[in-house]
């Protein structure tokens, strides 16, 4: 009976870890997609009315929720009150859903944001968008393969543990 209970708990833990793994890939994709949406808003805001960064940011923040929104809010608060330093920006975008490469991309982008004239700002936006496109494609692929595999793997592993223990 005890064996059965232990194997049940282990099966549950294994399945849970699998689901948590999938969750990570889902959230990572959402984070990057939200960043992509923000870049589009930014392009519209900068190009059309030359809106200022805090205005564009606040407008964007009113339309959603999630890890990227939380980080962006922190950054926009800084941009409203002072001229953020590299360390402050780094702290804002230190998300667990990002890889080392993604973090460098975001931190660089947000630190440089608003420090260039219009043409340079737009070309930096283009560059970041093209980098993000590749990253997002890779993340979506990982989500579909590894992300979808993890819960199944967790469940199978859990059942296997149950069978072995039984």
């Amino acid at each position, binding site marked *: 009976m005890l064996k059965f209970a232990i194997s049940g708990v282990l099966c549950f833990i294994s399945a849970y870890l699998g689901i948590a793994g999938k969750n990570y890939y889902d959230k990572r994709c959402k984070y990057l997609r939200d960043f992509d949406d923000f870049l589009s808003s930014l392009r519209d805001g*900068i190009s059309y009315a*030359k*809106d*200022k*960064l*805090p*205005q564009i940011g606040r407008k964007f923040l009113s339309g959603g929720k999630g890890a990227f929104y939380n980080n962006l809010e922190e950054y926009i608060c800084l*941009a*409203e*009150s*002072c*001229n*953020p330093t590299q360390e402050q920006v780094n702290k804002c975008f230190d998300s667990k859903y990002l890889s080392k490469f993604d973090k460098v991309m975001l931190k660089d982008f947000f630190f440089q*944001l*608003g*420090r*260039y*004239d*219009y*043409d*340079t*700002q*737009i070309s930096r936006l283009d560059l970041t968008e093209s980098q993000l496109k590749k990253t997002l494609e890779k993340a979506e692929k990982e989500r579909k393969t590894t992300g979808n595999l993890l819960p199944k793997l967790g469940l199978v592993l859990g059942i296997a543990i149950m069978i072995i223990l039984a």
Partner: protein
Amino acid sequence: MEMLLSKLIPISLFNELYRKVDFNLLTEVRMRLEKPLYYAEAGKYKRIDGLIVSKDDLLYTLGVATKTSLYAYDDYLAEGFITYDGGIRIGITGEGVIKNGRLSTLKNITSLCIRIPRYVKIHNEKVDCLINKFDNTLIISKPGYGKTTLLRYMIKSLSDREYNTLVLDERGELSGVVDGKLSIDLGSCTDVVVGVPKITAYASQVRSMRPDVIATDEIFGEKEIECILDCIRCGVKVIATLHSDEISKVKKSPIYSRLLSDFRYVVSIIGIGNIDRVVDLRGNYA
């Protein structure tokens, strides 16, 4: 104003300034790359020894002034200024970037001149008389002597007497408009046009807003004179300021002397709220 400056100026510089300055008298702060910090109290320049302005200090102030949105200020940088909250105007010098044959923006900023606006209630019989018998008025003085301060006072006084007063504030300095908010009270009957080239605004706004009075700061160039004279011909009264230390110099100028035929009063200023004299060009001197 103290709060705004504490945001705008890097903390190390602001702390030192805070110790030495009477903020009620502060009119200007000058930040020059690798030079000591200067400030002006009631128009008199003073230096803070041992406090050298760094490139980071300049970039910090520029970043705060542009709300981390330098891309939105290219045209202003090309004109050499930025308007910050509360009507604070920041003059900027640096290296010009030329695109398609015109100055597109500035880079490698070397100096910032932070000018603090003042609304001063002016107790002066001459000014009261000007407002009571209001007619086209030209305010002249050297830079930094308080032309804009007097202009603001006259705008508010006339507006409160229910003259529809149209303020052509190309640089946002008169009204302190930032992000659509007026930070300086210019009266209840005042309409403000901000950021529109004055030459365009004269023609379009006179027709659309039907002002009784047009107020404008720092007249410059022949085209503007033409526009002003046109407005006067239309029956709109004009208050304007002009950089010049003496009426005789205005009279000698082939461009600006044309104003004197249509303006009634010329006010010369020798300090903030300190009027030297009011000349009534129809014959009476005050």
